[in-house]
């Protein structure tokens, strides 16, 4: 790797476009072109320096902005494909076979292909994660390779540049001046009032402002890296909890993912907007769509096991707090948050029956069976009682001569009652299910269904995410960086004396040339500097002569 020796005697690293010291163009391309590309100040990117080992090659691959952009586009395209059909997460079935069937049923051949290619779980696929990882790698390497050379060259930039440097700037002017020294002095004064930092050196002047904006891109990239790092940490056990629980009204349950904590549901509330409400303004909308939900709420009590309490013990619980979990207002404790996410209404809770004499239809009394925790005997009167021999919450027919319940949830309760009456003190047996009563032999009494009580179930999500603050921090850093880079621009103006009372002016900004020119015009007016041209604006230089607008 040869060094590049500039005419001024400075030794520049390989890949340098503009001499680090005097600014003379070094490459033939830069020498021949009318304007020069000023990004990274024409300094050599680190990766350009050597091309040797495989490591260096990989490094150079990720250092390229072209590759970076390609990765961005790849992430963009794969993300878009992922929205073509709903992702696995939003599909109402859970087993693999069901998911495959779901895509096939709804989207036909395309659905099957989508499923087979793994697009149904796009954002969890190894190759999507790899792409994001490559993006992160590219951000890190490309930034590191550029920020140091840029910092160095901005730090050691000279006030006096070689005329050839001035001539290849996009904004350049050259002309004679009556009194170059006076012009320089006035320009310096005006530039200072425009908040430029002005440096002078042997008849040359460099005015510079907002150099810090050049660090914006690197700061925002650092923010992105912090963000990605935060996401990486979620893989560590204990950093991230994501569980769901269904809790019935009146139930107390251990909170999944939060050992030692218990939640009691005191009630679920669903409210809809009504027309009588103060906001009669909603009437029209309610007429059109029917009902609109107003509130989903679960009133809960949070308990914690006392110090040294064990799972399974109930006597060591102590009330931590009572809270109403509503959408947008999660319950938070000890780094956990519990969210109101879903609900199911009207699960059977209790059933009330009446014991009647078949012949006369006379009632011997009513009793209520709690379907969650039924009792075994219901006393109705002296000598009259109903015994609950067995209970099948989710009755699903008879198997091997035995009634079967397919789940513990009272979806379809069935009971075996023994009715003890003064008339039949030995008891009569009866199997009672919804819309069905079976008797081994003809009974004198029967149990009639009267009414059912229901309760609601709240679907809650339990989250703990210790990485959130890291992510937020990354976001803030990103915003600071991106604002620095976008809302401020690094502007530089060079003015220097040439031969025979001439003045050379050149200016550069990384963005927003319009404002730079406005400032330059002000300086020009006061200091009577020679006219300049914007080499990239072919139109105004030709049309400008037609004169100003009215």
């Amino acid at each position, binding site marked *: 790797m040869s060094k590049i020796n500039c005419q001024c005697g400075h030794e520049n690293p390989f890949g340098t476009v503009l001499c680090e010291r005097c600014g003379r163009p070094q490459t033939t391309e830069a020498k021949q072109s009318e304007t020069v590309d000023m990004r990274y100040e024409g300094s050599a990117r680190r990766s350009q320096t050597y091309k040797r080992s495989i490591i260096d090659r990989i490094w150079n691959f990720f250092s390229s902005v072209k590759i970076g952009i390609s990765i961005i586009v790849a992430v963009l395209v794969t993300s878009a494909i992922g929205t073509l059909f709903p992702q696995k997460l939003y599909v109402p079935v859970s087993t693999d076979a069901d998911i495959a069937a779901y895509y096939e049923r709804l989207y036909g051949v395309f659905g099957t292909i989508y499923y087979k290619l793994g697009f149904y779980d796009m954002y969890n696929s190894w190759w999507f994660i790899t792409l994001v990882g490559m993006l992160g790698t590219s951000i890190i390497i490309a930034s590191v390779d550029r920020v140091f050379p840029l910092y160095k060259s901005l730090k050691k930039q000279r006030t006096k540049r070689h005329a050839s440097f001035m001539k290849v700037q996009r904004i350049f002017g050259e002309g004679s001046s009556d009194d170059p020294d006076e012009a320089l002095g006035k320009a310096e004064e005006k530039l200072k009032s425009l908040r430029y930092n002005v440096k002078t050196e042997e008849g040359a002047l460099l005015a510079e402002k907002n150099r810090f904006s050049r660090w914006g891109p690197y700061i925002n990239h650092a923010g992105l890296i912090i963000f990605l790092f935060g996401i990486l940490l979620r893989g560590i056990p204990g950093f991230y909890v994501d569980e769901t629980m269904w809790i019935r009204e009146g139930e107390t349950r251990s909170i999944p993912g939060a050992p030692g904590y218990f939640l009691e549901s005191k009630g679920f509330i669903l409210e809809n907007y009504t027309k009588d409400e103060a*906001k009669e303004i909603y009437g029209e909308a309610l007429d059109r769509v029917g009902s609109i939900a107003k509130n989903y709420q679960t009133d809960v009590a949070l308990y914690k096991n006392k110090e040294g309490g064990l799972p399974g013990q109930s006597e060591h619980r102590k009330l931590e707090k009572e809270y109403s979990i509503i959408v947008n207002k*999660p319950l938070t404790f000890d780094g956990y948050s519990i969210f109101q996410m879903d609900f199911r209404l009207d699960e059977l809770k209790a059933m009330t029956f009446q014991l009647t004499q078949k012949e006369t239809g006379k009632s011997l009394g009513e009793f209520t069976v709690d379907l969650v925790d039924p009792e075994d005997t219901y006393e109705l009167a002296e000598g009259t009682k109903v015994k609950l021999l067995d209970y099948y919450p989710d009755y699903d027919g008879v198997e091997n001569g035995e009634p079967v319940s397919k789940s513990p949830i009272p979806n379809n309760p069935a009971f075996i009652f023994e009715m003890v009456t003064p008339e039949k003190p030995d008891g009569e047996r009866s199997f009672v299910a919804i819309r069905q009563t079976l008797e081994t032999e003809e009974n004198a009494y029967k149990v009639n269904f009267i009414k059912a009580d229901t309760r609601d179930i709240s679907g809650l999500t339990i989250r703990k995410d210790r990485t959130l603050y890291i992510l937020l921090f990354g976001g803030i850093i990103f915003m600071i960086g991106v604002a620095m880079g976008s809302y401020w621009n690094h502007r530089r103006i060079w003015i220097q004396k040439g031969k025979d009372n001439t003045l050379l002016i050149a200016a550069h900004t990384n963005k927003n040339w319009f404002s730079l020119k406005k400032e330059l015009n002000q300086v020009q007016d006061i200091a009577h500097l020679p006219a300049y041209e914007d080499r990239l604006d072919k*139109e105004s230089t030709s049309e400008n002569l037609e004169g100003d607008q009215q």
Partner: protein
Amino acid sequence: MALASISSNLLFVSFIAYLIATLFFGGAIKGGKAETTDKNNKWGKVAITITIIGFLCHIGYFITRWIASGHAPVSNMFEFTTAFGMMLVGSFILLFFLYRTPSLGLFALPIAIIIIGYASMFPKEITPLIPALKSYWLTVHVITAALGESILAISAVAGLIYLLKNVDLTKKSKQRFWLEAVMFTLVLVIGFVVSSTAFSIAGYEAKFTYIDKNEAPAKIEYNYPPLFGMHEYKALTEGAMEPIAEMPPIVNAKTLTTFVWSIGTGIVLYVLLRLIFRRPLAMVLQPFAKKANSQLMDEIGYRSVLIGFPVFTLGALIFAMIWAHEAWSRFWGWDPKEVWALITWLFYAAFLHLRLSRGWEGEKSAWLAVIGFIIIMFNLIAVNLIIAGLHSYA
């Protein structure tokens, strides 16, 4: 109720004001010379004044509706799109005062007008907030995101002007084809507005029952003569048109019907315009872009991306994540709307990198700005109406 009607009147006034301002901007360009300086002629001054009046009325609409409904009016398609149109005008005013270019107004205002027209095709009544939207983050997130998008949209306007001025329309080329395609798309949106207005004035409606994709029975009401029927549809309205074809359950035949009617109307409209002008629409508009300065338009396009990108990031990603964490328990869930916000963000990130490092300025940059606007519109329209997700409120 009074406040609500004041609100809609103000919106109407602003709509008219934008129309008039557009004409004045046209006059400013006709009378003016090439745009290089920061001075405007009389027409230009009148035009921007009318625009500002219209904008103030628009803000008036926004505030009165906010007071009337008790929440920021950004909670459904009509409200959001109207607010987006408002911010588009606001962003234009901001950039106008930075660069004083009337041609930007001549192209930005009609786009705002089309957007407001599009918005008013959706149900306009004030709706109460569903539980998920009841949060101050609704105000913060939606307004910031819309503001960011609207500033980004200005870059597409500047890009369009750049392209109209610089693409050679006399010779057959890819550029000419795609520029005309952009014009055609704008006509299609007008086609939607025209057809939708026509049928709603005629009071057309047809009700059907059908079986939805989860195999549950459902009802639907068409406002267009039903070209396509929902899965296993049955007509409830007597004398309604019999749909030509029945669709499988995943296709929303109502949306498809609206879409086909709009495209049909759009095509008719486009053909009519072509017959009237006897040349491509891009060519018709080209003279209006002639006065613009290419370098300046390129810079306006770039500058508006620079201004809009951080605002968009803040509103559509950061605030969105914070709210999503509070409302849905996760800050990111790969919901289609979220993904498309990310896609928009990645796209503009690519735009900036291409410009900074690969020297994509001028025409390439202008094309990218137009594509960016298409992505934003896709997220606003298609993702809400076609790809169902958590964000589909309309």
